[in-house]
């Protein structure tokens, strides 16, 4: 993924590996360790960095959870558009991700539950019942190939010859 965009290279480094310490980050990005620590605190305070987490291959981790993508049609509100409803939906613990989308539906809601029944009951009892939710369409994630930039289960070995002139 080409990263010659506007995002600070330091943030890109953290996205690849947030466990690198300030000294390593300093060497890789050309800054100084103390300055980097300060910058990280600033970003954490202002919400540029929302959090740090490990990206896990849930199958390997032994999880039997299901992940569902729910396409939601909303009634926009005067003076607020979709924001109030979307924020309310996003606050549910079951909701892992939530985005406003262009195209044939309004909100993409990613939900995780212990099984199909649990997800279905969340949609039926908690999501569809919200005033302003017009319709939902649910599909289930079957197999992961890549998430957050990390390939799962695919060959990523360095295939170069070990010694070349």
């Amino acid at each position, binding site marked *: 993924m080409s990263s*010659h965009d506007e995002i600070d290279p330091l943030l890109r480094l953290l996205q690849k590996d947030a466990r690198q310490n300030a000294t390593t980050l300093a060497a890789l990005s050309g800054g100084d360790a103390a300055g980097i620590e300060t910058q990280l605190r600033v970003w954490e305070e202002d919400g540029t960095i929302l959090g740090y987490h490990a990206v896990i291959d849930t199958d390997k981790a032994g999880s039997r959870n299901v992940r569902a993508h729910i396409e939601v049609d909303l009634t926009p509100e005067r003076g607020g558009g979709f924001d109030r409803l979307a924020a309310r939906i996003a606050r549910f613990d079951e909701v892992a991700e939530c985005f406003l989308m262009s195209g044939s539906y309004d909100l993409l809601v990613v939900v995780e539950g212990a099984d199909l029944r649990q997800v279905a009951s969340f949609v039926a009892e908690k999501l569809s019942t919200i005033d302003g939710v017009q319709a939902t369409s649910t599909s289930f994630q079957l197999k992961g190939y890549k998430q957050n930039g990390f390939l799962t289960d695919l060959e990523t070995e360095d295939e*170069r010859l070990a*010694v070349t002139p």
Partner: protein
Amino acid sequence: MHEASNGTGKSPSDRISKLVEDIPRSGIRDFFELVQSKGDVISLGVGEPDFATPWHIREAMIFSLEKGQTSYTSNLGMPQLRDLISDYVDDFFDVRYDPNSEVIVTVGVSEALDLVFRALLDPGDEVIYHEPCYVSYSPSVVMAHGKAVAVATRPEDDFSLRASDVEAAITDRTKVVMINFPTNPTGATQPREELEKIARLIVERDLLCITDEIYSELRYDKNDPEVEDHLCIATLPGMRERTILLHGFSKAYAMTGLRLGYACAPAPIVEAMMKIHQYSMLCAPITSQVAAIEALENGAPMVEEMRRSYEGRRNLFLSRIEEIGLPCFRPGGAFYAFPDIRKTGLTSSEFAFGLLEAENVAVVPGTAFGECGEGFVRCCYATAENKLRQALDGIERFVARAI
């Protein structure tokens, strides 16, 4: 090596040409074989980028194959590619070559090197070059029946080349002076002042010059006002008419296996190279030429991204090697560092073999690149950060025991 005859004539090993027999076995080859035989080695012994060729280039190649573009091209290379090369060289190196007569596309810079020596050298002609250097320079001269004259570069000069050392090596048989900066294996860059002196010397003595520019895009510390910009010797007074500029796509565009390079030189030299190339290769592979076209048209942003990535890892490597206590000068280009291991009291070979044995980390002994590499090892930092760190940890443990 001569095996006993079994009575039905000479054995194959007795039939090898003397010229080839006399070429010494590659210093890297034994080490390579040892590394291959061990599993699970973290190798800093690689000589190529750890990026795959950027996708847009691979996609252009795939598309060309789908279209059925698989035939021979013009011997000199596809005209569109030569145009782009001419523009690129003008833009990047500041010297203009006519794409119709002064540019030849080759199967890697390796082929260009072979062609230029075979085109220029009569038996006994001497080629001055600087060591430590890429392993194929001297054998290529020998295979063209020339004499390879090595000039040692020194650690106190950060392995840059002194004009006075070049001058001392000139004889009445000297025909060519060859330079390569940034350098494999040292990562050295050449200060402007010395390069200008060498150019004046070459002009004065009416010699030819070959410049291998393969690592030129991979230069670092660009924001440091103390660090000079890259200077191509062909731009200096009197040099264009006597210089062969070699460059390729392997390092900057991560196209090592695609084997695509080129030479830019005055028309009679390109013509002579073409005479050989048309019979030995006919043309560089068309799919690789397609890749090169895409690289030159759209590859600049990815080159910059890769360059920045190498620079970060260089800095990581240098800061750790300093902590470990091995002196290592700051390489201005390429993706190699050349730490000084003399304080361990070990030879380069002992260090490399010992490190491999004890810590499963591979670095290449400096002697693989010339005798003056003794006391040094080449470390390639074009490796994933976590592997780099692990390798450095291994080096640290090994050095601590050795001192």
